[in-house]
């Protein structure tokens, strides 16, 4: 079954006729070719596919594209300014070496950005709890926590 979806992705309106079973992450990666959003587990555990839907950080492997019909979606590609200047959270990850292989990074950054609205003064412990849904196999999380703290303060 084909469905029509319309949503705003990184500020641009997109409309497409897609299979009803299309996951949001596949719509973003395969239809829009925005490949910064990654798939690490397909089961909403690893968080590599985290994007913002109407301002909330959600795992896009666990949502149908049709469920995001009419929504405003922000992916990692939509964070930096038009001139390429990184979002303060992105800059903080670079400054504090909060990434290594980079695969979990987009999801990690999207989760961290959501925290800015929820807990702008989060403690280390609160940051660790908030990132519970985003796995990183490279960094041991220490520098991610440091980066998020700096990104929240920026």
């Amino acid at each position, binding site marked *: 079954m084909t469905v029509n979806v319309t949503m705003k992705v990184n500020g641009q309106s997109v409309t497409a006729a897609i299979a009803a079973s299309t996951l949001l992450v596949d719509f973003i990666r395969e239809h829009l*070719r925005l490949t910064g959003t990654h798939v*690490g*587990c397909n089961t909403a*555990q690893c968080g590599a596919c985290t994007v913002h839907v109407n301002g909330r950080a959600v795992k896009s492997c666990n949502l149908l594209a049709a469920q995001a019909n009419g929504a405003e979606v922000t992916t990692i590609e939509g964070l930096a300014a038009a001139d390429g200047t990184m979002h303060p959270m992105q800059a903080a*990850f670079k400054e504090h070496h909060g990434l*290594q292989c*980079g695969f979990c990074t987009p999801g990690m950054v999207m989760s961290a950005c959501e925290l800015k609205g929820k807990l702008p003064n989060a403690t280390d412990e609160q940051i660790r709890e908030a990132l519970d849904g985003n796995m*990183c*196999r490279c960094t041991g999380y220490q520098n991610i*926590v440091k980066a998020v703290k700096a990104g929240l303060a920026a």
Partner: protein
Amino acid sequence: MKADGIGARVTRKEDHRFLTGNGQYTDDISLPRQTYAAFVRSPHAHAKINGVDSASAAAMPGVVAIFTGKDIAASGIGGLPCGWLIHSKDGTPMKEPPHHILAVDKARYVGDQVAVVIAETLEQARAAAEAVSVDYDVLPAVVDTATASKAKASVHDAAADNVCYVWGHGDAAAVDKAIASAHHVSSLDIVNNRLAPNAIEPRAANAAYDKSSDSYTLYVSNQNPHVERLLMCAFVLGIPEHKMRVIAPDVGGGFGSKIFLYAEETVLVWASKRVGRPIKWTADRMEAFLSDAHGRDHVTNVQLAMDANGKFTGMKVTTTANVGAYLSTFASSVPTILYATLLAGQYTTPAIYAEVTAVFTNTSPVDAYRGAGRPEATYVVERIVETAARDMKLDPAEIRRRNFITTFPYATPVGLTYDIGDYPACLDKALKLADYAGFPARQAEAKTRGKLRGIGLSSYIEACGLAPSNVAGALGARAGLFEAGEVRVHPTGKVTVFTGSHSHGQGHETTFAQVVADKLGIPIDDVDIQHGDTGKVLFGMGTYGSRSLAVGGSAIFKAVDKVIAKGKKIAAHLLEAADTDIEFKDGVFKVAGTDKNVPFANVALTAYVPHNYPLDKLEPGLNENAFYDPTNFTYPAGTHICEVEVDPDTGKTQIVNFTAVDDFGNIINPMIVEGQVHGGLAQGIGQALLEGCVYDSESGQLLTATYMDYAMPRADDLPNFQVATHVTPCTHNPLGVKGCGEAGAIGSPAALMNAITHAVGVKDIAMPATSERVWRALQGRA
């Protein structure tokens, strides 16, 4: 120190693309007209394949082709090779049963690939794969490591007792004598639990055949594209090597699991010519759990003999190592060459003997995983040393100190010669940082809160910088272990470096650029590092065994030296001086003792616009290659100290302090080194506290094949680490570096388990030390 040179905390050049979603991982690459593959995998651990019926699947929408093991075998394709030949102690070679890229007569583990479906879309490929009907006769499965050699069933006919080899290393008679005459012998039975590597990027490949040039291009998530190409072309598919380009683009973590030549990408390359279109495959997470090579899985008894002063006199290690259903690329070397050679640890133990029985089981293949053999060795040594301290009522720090090697070079009784180190210095620094002296007070305070506090040490050593090719060859390696580098200076003085090392998180694009920029006296932004493409890089052995900087960096170093040497000749011509009078410093060639000089960029331009140039004796251009083959391994070493608090009501362990003091030799970028240590510690702590592959002992089903069942360390499972370094520069490579990628995973499990067993007051708890296991241990003690 140059602000962006050697030793500087330079932020990473690669970060911008990763942070803005512009990385290019294999699954991000889509090729025109590409198809998608789905593998039909065995649901049984051990089963005879009577037949594969793909007729109805082939008629499903979008199906392009279906291939089975018989199709592959009919085209004369053999199996995947093992890269290291081990001989049993009786002189017979290891058993190497065929490892078909699609199973032919039998499936030997859950996930073993039986057929491949290629279709227009991924959904169509998966749907058709479900419809392929395989007629299996289920056979009894061999699962358990310790009892595999006594199992009634055989994984391979060629190894009826499931034994791949029984390998001996060291002087057995001397060890028996030491044990017989010892004041005390400490003994321990331990298990090194099986782990799934779990790079967050699953393995992926995209293979394309080009008819016009009769050549192939393979994009693959891999740590060593040249090795992948060599093995696939020369040992499996018979494709001429110059007709295959392997590209390992951005790779989302490897940890060893992406070293190996796997069946999936080999099938894709083979099939791409048959279907005449590119074929893409990306593992889902359950496929990754089932089909990525696992790590560890040892069962060991260790005995340590000592005199009345706690001085070690002999050590005997008996290990059974599970290699899984087939020999993966480096599987045979991990529990032997990379394991038993490290059993001296940091100690002067004069006699050591290890016997390793490698067994086949109906489980996923086991191969190198972060540390590969060295974590297993460290776990044996550091657990038994701690046990010995308790038996002898000696402070764990003191017993280590009494046995440390303090003179270098030092030839161990297990075949290695340590070039340099300062083990007491690392220990002392760690003790101080961890406030070891204050532990009794903290323990007493914890007791008032009803908590059990324990502290554990681990003074590890590893052999890295793999490896001197001649030594490796004598030990059974079927390949060289040098590294290659090319430094291409452009006419404007900008530099592109091509390296055979592969970065999949290690930050080579920054670290290697720091080295080159420092040596050439140019800004780091003028240096780009290229890697991961056999079409660009002259050759390479890739990244594993903490070898990239020590071996790959040394190759680059040598190539830069050649650039400077040639530049001096050009500068001598321009400055009308003798070659021998030219000095090069801070990016400027200068006639010694004068102010006559010419900058690097002018020399580069002259090399490419050779109007005023010694064309009669010097070729134009400024582009140099180097191959570097190390003369020894490097020996990173250090002490990790872990302090824990155990809640006796729940068995829950909390790490209250973790201190790591490591000697990695000279450090190019401290920020990156700290990051590598953090990540290694997380994996070691994951092994000790959380992770473990569990197979059903009867059916051979992998029970931990999702993130719901396999406990990956998450942010709130881990503490902040206290890390520091102590430097003794490596004596035999030009950078004086040793490697830092694996140390965290090597040293930490023993420190943590020594701390937990100390807190609980028992000799051993099996890893992972879950709350349940710790709680049960506490009940047993009462």
